[in-house]
């Protein structure tokens, strides 16, 4: 694996920028309903490879001793939850909403890491569709409760566009930091 820390920092920064990027006013407005969930995709990319990271900074921040997976999982969950607070403020959403979403996704990916490694690209895409669909329903439910936002088809459209973007994310990661599977 080649310098995953630098690559992931760039990916997460670009995802943050893209998730607040708005289209020009004269573009068709329906395009906004198909914006991918950049942050969740970047997070999946990072968490997929967490058990393989051996970098000094990662060891310092996320591991107590080499064999302790529990500590790493807990620290990663706290870390993504704090990132969620940042995204909440960035997007002007209720505090803790993105933290809960990120922590849920991360927990699932870490808990079933070994099983998910066997998936083909197509199976990964289906998994990402389901995952983003469910988290968007959670978001829509929270926003409906807190800010009176109506229900619409966004959970489906956002999940579909994110799913279609996953092969590109995956290809970039393979190209720059190597495969996610243990070989």
């Amino acid at each position: 694996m080649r310098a995953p820390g630098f690559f992931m920092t760039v990916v997460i920064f670009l995802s943050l920028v893209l998730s607040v990027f708005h289209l020009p006013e004269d573009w068709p407005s329906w395009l906004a309903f198909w914006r991918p969930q950049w942050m969740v995709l970047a997070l999946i990319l990072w968490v997929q490879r967490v058990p393989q990271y051996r970098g000094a900074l990662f060891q310092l921040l996320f591991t107590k001793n080499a064999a302790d997976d529990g500590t790493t999982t807990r620290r990663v969950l706290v870390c993504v939850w704090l990132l969620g607070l940042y995204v909440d403020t960035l997007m002007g959403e209720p505090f803790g909403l993105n933290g809960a979403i990120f922590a849920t996704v991360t927990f699932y990916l870490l808990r079933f890491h070994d099983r998910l490694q066997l998936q083909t690209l197509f199976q990964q895409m289906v998994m990402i569709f389901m995952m983003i669909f469910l988290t968007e329903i959670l978001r829509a439910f929270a926003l409906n409760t807190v800010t009176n936002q109506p229900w619409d088809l966004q959970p489906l459209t956002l999940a579909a566009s994110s799913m279609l973007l996953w092969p590109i994310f995956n290809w970039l990661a393979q190209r720059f930091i190597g495969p996610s599977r243990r070989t």
Partner: protein
Amino acid sequence: MSFQANNKGKVDRAERSQGSLVTLRSIILTLARPIYSAAQAPYDATGLVTDISTDRQSLLQQRDALSAQLLQLNQQQQRLQYLQAENARLRQLLNSKAQLPRQATIAEIIGVPPDPLRAAVILDKGSDDGVAAGDAVVDEKGLFGQVVTVSQDTCWVVLITDRDHAIPARNNRTGVRMIVGGTGAYDNLVLEDLPASTDLLEGDLIETSGLGGRFPVGYPIGKVNLVERTQDSPYLQATLVPTAALLKVGHVLIIAPPKTDVVPPAEAVEDESVEDNS
């Protein structure tokens, strides 16, 4: 009376417990400024390219148009000063308080949430420039929104078309008080709970009434485009089109409330004792 006092105590406590979260949000929002700037960078770059490639001829034309407009505005301003002085004198005669001047800050829109269901924008002015939550925001054509979250150098503004937003308003033609609510659509506001007998016509200008003290009085909100009276409803259905250009990205004005006198300490002490009893 005691019921009100009890409730006030509860509200105060709720506000205080939310205070730390508001501070945390404002600190994180300060850290978020680079992300907004980076997301806005492509638009700034296209603006720069347009600036560079504009030729001399069109710049001269633009300058002529602007100086003509300035002349017109200056002439209106002279008239305004006279009217303001007259207004102050008349208010003095009636023994009513003069309207205090409000401070306006020019701000630029640096971000728009990409979610089409959210009616909000992010501005490049914050608490360092004297902006506070609750300040009104207007553009050159009418009321735009109000500030909800403030950091050191940015603030979030909820637009008047937000589903949760409502404005105390009045009809410019008749003076009738009403409440204008947002619908979530950029080109549509709704007049809430008006009796069917209200004098309201299509084309009426609705402006802020200044009640509640949050929005300054007399800013245009929108023009009525639909009035419907049905036999079976005691209320009329009316919608208006906002006058402000809510979809554009550019400059807006943040209007702070007038500086009022400090609350006398006796009142504050009374509030504290009421809260202790409750």
